[in-house]
């Protein structure tokens, strides 16, 4: 099949992820959505590298995974602390600062 379709898929996933970030409340879920977006990026990279016939995209994909992993570490750490102090993972509860 035409590899371009993977691009459409990537775009779709990215959009879903973005939408999820905007819609969902639970911090963890938000975070997963972000991960989804990153994965969409990866898919795009790989597809493009396939289309271009060079390996950069695939290498970048690896980098992305590493970075994502690091992000998870930090992110979860923060979210967990907040959860422990608030007993809630809802991002809407974390709205002391406004205006």
């Amino acid at each position, binding site marked *: 099949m035409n590899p371009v379709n993977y691009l459409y898929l990537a775009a779709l996933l990215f959009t879903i992820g*973005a939408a999820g*970030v905007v*819609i969902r409340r639970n911090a963890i879920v938000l975070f997963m959505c972000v991960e989804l977006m990153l994965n969409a990026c990866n898919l795009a990279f790989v597809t493009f590298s396939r289309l271009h016939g060079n390996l950069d995209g695939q290498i970048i994909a690896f980098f992305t995974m590493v970075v994502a992993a690091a992000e998870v570490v930090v992110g979860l750490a923060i979210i967990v602390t907040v959860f422990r102090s608030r007993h809630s993972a809802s*991002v*809407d509860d974390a*709205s002391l*600062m406004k*205006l």
Partner: protein
Amino acid sequence: MENLIGLLVAVPLLGAALLLCGGRRLDGKGHYIGTVLAGASFVIGAVLFADMLGRGEHDRALHSKVFSWIPVGGFRADVAFQLDQLSMTFVLLITGVGTLIHIYSIGYMEHDERRRRFFGYLNLFLAAMLLLVLADNYLLLYVGWEGVGLASYLLIGFWQHKPSAATAAKKAFIVNRVGDVGLSIAIMLMFTTFGTFTFAPVLTNADHASEGKLTAIGLMLLLAACGKSAQVPLQSWLGDAMEGPTPVSALIHAATMVTAGVYLITRSGAIFNAAPDAQAAVVAVGAVTLLFGAIVGCAKDDIKKALAGSTMSQIGYMILAAGLGPIGYVFAIMHLVTHGFFKAGLFLGAGSVMHAMNDEVDMRKYGGLRKYMPVTFITFGLGYLAIIGFPGLSGFWSKDKIIEAAFAKGGTEGWILGGAALLGAAITAYYMTRVMLLTFFGEKRWVPDEEGHEPHPHESPSSMTIPMIVLAVGSVFAGGLFSVNDAFLKWLEPVTGHSHGDSPLSAAAVTAGTMVVLAIGVALAWAQYGRRPVPRTAPRGSLLTRAARRDLLQDDFNHVALVKPGQYLTRGLVYVDHKLVDGVVNGTAASVGGLSGRLRKLQNGYARTYAVSMFGGTAVLIAATLLMRAV
């Protein structure tokens, strides 16, 4: 000799400086210093006069430039003096009468703890007035012009603790200011027309300029004259000015300052000669005022106000004469001088009476004073005869000539003016007789004042009577002296020029007419106030009388036409400034604040909202970029 001219101004100015800055330590001798210096300036004047007589009639004028005053571009004003016959006449009048009144004031102001300052102001006035008549250009004249205004302001308001006095002073100054605007505009016009405003060049080249310009200049000068000389329509201040001490009324508001207008017009003769329309305006003003003043004079019970009305009317005569052009200039000045004598005398007399009557001014509360203060009575009487133009006395000579000149104007105009002048003479006779009768004849109508002091009329001290006597002498003989083979005419003609004009009536006829109206006037007054006893409180009187008592409604008019609207305008503007001009600014600030308040609501603390804005932002960003490419 030239340098003496400067001295003429400097001496009284020095006096003013001394007395005003001298402080309390001069309180004791202040009045002497003032008087001496005034006398000194008179002496200088006399010296210069003698010197002038020593020279041929066409090179009598002296000129002395002291220093260059304002040199900016083409605009050059010098502090320079010009002493010709016209100025000379004034110098003598001012310093002479001035000195007398200084002497008089020594007695009159004896009990005033601020006497020193009073004399300081008087000296200041002398200096300013001399500057006015000695200046060789209009701008310097303007300085003197406002200087006398200042002096008059200070002196009218000398008893500042009286609100009425303060108000009167302010009124005088402001009305004069209106006139001054005329003068300053006239000067600007001269500058733009001739590139200079020094008398000689302007007057010499007057007829080169377009008549329109000249008319404009003339009218502006007339406006100035109206302000200073209390002519209609700027006459309203003079009556109130009587709030000032009587010597002031005598010197400033009778003899000298108020005649400055006449000086200005005569001095600017060349301009008026070339601008008939302006002249017409002048004579109109003169004629109207001489009647106006006279009528007001008839209705007043306050002796000083009555005299003030008379002053107004007499100056009306002078302005009228000056407006007639070369026919009248000389007589305007001549009447000015004689009037200076007898009106000053009359005022001093009035002052002496008030002095005797615990400062009572209502003539209805006088009566029969001739027994108690004979000197005052006699001097006042002589002044009275002079002013109504009793044959042989000063007033007769000068006024008669003016009436004559008025007819000599020729045509219907001549008849109208002549008629007005005659009518004026009649009324003058009437109201002056009234004053005379009310004050010195009939039975005494005195009443105790607030503290219940029964007035004990007595003759004033010699320091006061002597000046009165001197002035009386002047008012008897001056006119005659001047007319001895037209001495005065010959004296002034080189400066003012003179033409005889063609009178439809012979001089004799005019004189006869004058005599007749004069008699009528006196008779009427006698009928009204001589035969019957006079009520202490004024009867309601006819409509005209009541109007005249209110100065023919001039103040009411000003109030309705100027003061009220002015107040509303000011209040309105204050509101506008606060609400509108300021409001706009504060409004902008407020609206920014409001906008800010609304915008910050977006910052609602929800991470997801922020994400939305980022998401939307990106979308817009992308869309915009694509759009840019599309177009």
